[in-house]
């Protein structure tokens, strides 16, 4: 992006992007930690994830304020306006991703008999994939890279496929072991949350594409 005559505007945009990146970093760690807490049964780590979500919320409101201020004071046009609008929307979505991680972390204590609970091994690979999408989309945002954003959008199908296979797997596990239904149901919710994280990463990717090129990615990629 070319420099502007008003230096303060550049500073504002840089700060806005910095805030988004910080939020994204926190969300990425939250996904990873919540899954690790779930697999190890580490409730303390789960509580830390829940606590860190507050920081994401605070950052989101900071982004909101800054974006509104930029629009009010500088009246940005063209790619500057897209940048600010995209930041505003991305902040909202990243905040949701943080919420889903928090939700996963809250379920850590609700899974019983984890030593012998086979379905637990299904989720890490899916979490890995969803986390990778979030990581890639944030990298695409930092680089303003529309092609990486499109790649993220195409990964979402894999996460959905994972979700379907885990869903079937868990349902058949519940049929065979009625005693574990309450734990398995928690895992279903966790898988659902991961699937939603993938969808939201896709939304961010669309916004990144929009901010970089001015158009949404073609429908075929989604």
């Amino acid at each position: 992006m070319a420099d502007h005559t008003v230096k303060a505007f550049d500073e504002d945009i840089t700060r806005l992007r910095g805030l988004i990146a910080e939020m994204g970093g926190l969300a990425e760690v939250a996904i990873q930690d919540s899954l690790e807490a779930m697999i190890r049964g580490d409730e303390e780590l789960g509580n830390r994830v829940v606590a860190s979500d507050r920081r994401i919320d605070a950052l989101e409101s900071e982004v909101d304020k800054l974006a509104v201020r930029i629009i009010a004071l500088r009246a940005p046009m063209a790619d500057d306006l897209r940048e600010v609008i995209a930041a505003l929307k991305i902040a909202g979505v990243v905040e949701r991703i943080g919420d889903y991680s928090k939700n996963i972390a809250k379920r850590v204590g609700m899974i019983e008999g984890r030593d012998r609970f086979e379905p637990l091994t299904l989720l890490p690979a899916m979490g890995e994939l969803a986390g990778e999408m979030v990581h890639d989309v944030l990298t695409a945002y930092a680089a303003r890279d529309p092609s990486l954003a499109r790649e993220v959008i195409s990964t979402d199908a894999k996460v959905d496929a994972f979700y379907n296979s885990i869903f079937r797997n868990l349902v058949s596990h519940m049929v065979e072991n009625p005693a574990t239904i309450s734990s398995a149901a928690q895992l279903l919710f966790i898988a659902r949350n991961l699937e939603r994280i993938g969808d939201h990463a896709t939304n961010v990717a669309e916004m990144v594409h929009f901010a970089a090129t001015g158009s949404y990615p073609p429908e075929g990629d989604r």
Partner: protein
Amino acid sequence: MGSIKTIPVAGILLALLTSLALLGLDVDPIVTATVLLVWIGSLLIAAGRPPEVPQRKVEQSLSIDSMRGLIESASTPLLVTERNKIAIANRAARRMMGQHMIGQDARVAFRQPEAIALLGADRTGKAIVRGLVRRQDIWQINRQRVDQNIAVIELINRTAEADISRAHTDFVANASHELRTPLASILGYVETLSESGDSLDSPTSKKFLGTIEREAQRLQSLIGDLMSLSRVEAEKHDLPQQIVELRALVERAARDAAGPQRVEQLEFDIAADPNVRGDRQQLEQVVRNLVDNALKYGASDGTVTVGLDLTQDGQARIVVHDEGEGIAPEQIPHLTRRFYRTDPGRSRASGGTGLGLAIVKHIVERHRGRLDIDSHLGKGTRVAVRMPTADPIPAATTAPTTTDQATRTEATSRDNASIAS
């Protein structure tokens, strides 16, 4: 700097006054003129030199601009930040994070919370972060403050070290988990049997005994696999010297692995009769593991083709091909890792230990061979083991019959080389 200032007006005036005074004192006008000339001339020469620059300014221009040159060709990624905005990135850093980082907020480059905490701190420090470029990377970030606004950030890749220690802990954790699971069920059933004693009817107790036997066998095969894996690893560097006839060995080992129930599913496609230098038992184990995998994970009534032929460059090649559901491409790189399972539930249910392909890989490596896994979802998996033959057979006389993957790169010169050796 204006040229007016460089003419020393005061000095010239002083020289003029002095010469006037000299004239007034009756000094020879020629001498006076000479003095005046030398005086003014030397004043002008002195003024022509560039003025001395204040010391502080030199230091300032040194710091940002010469830093660029200083760090540019360092092999570690280095960044210079000014008020937490990236001012300079050297070549290594640009290659790692992309050109776009320059001029951005440092938080865009390092979005990990630990790194951001480090950026905010007003002292020097370091942090270990995950996922700086790719998601599994581990980097150490060292931040050195230069003055109020400027800091130098050094990035060190720690991924390899962490990988080694993680692989080790993973192995120990996995191995103990794998050993504990069958033990737990053996203990459970034995306890039930001994507590309820005679009250159990005989079909139930027979069922329990059956489970105990199955789990004990699983434990036995796991321990057997672990031992052969460690034996193969220990001898990894000495090439075996026995001459082995592959054809007979492959046929026998494949039938062994299939057992009487599954032997009809096997189909042989033997196109050569090579001899290799190898360890008979280990090679048998390779074939057994591959055929067992193919039968276990292939379609339940599909055929498994066991092929033996020569590649164009004269290597012996064993191919095991199934018609199962195939393996997803992203799983293939991990298949030879210990205890790695693409589908943990199914693998355990069919009595797999998770070590089969790891053993195959190590044995093949010991025989200076190559292991290629090629799979298409929905079509099946094809595992090929290539290894050098012991007797040089001219490659031209034995044209490979099956679909040949090895044709892609082998050059004629290499054929000749391997025949001559």
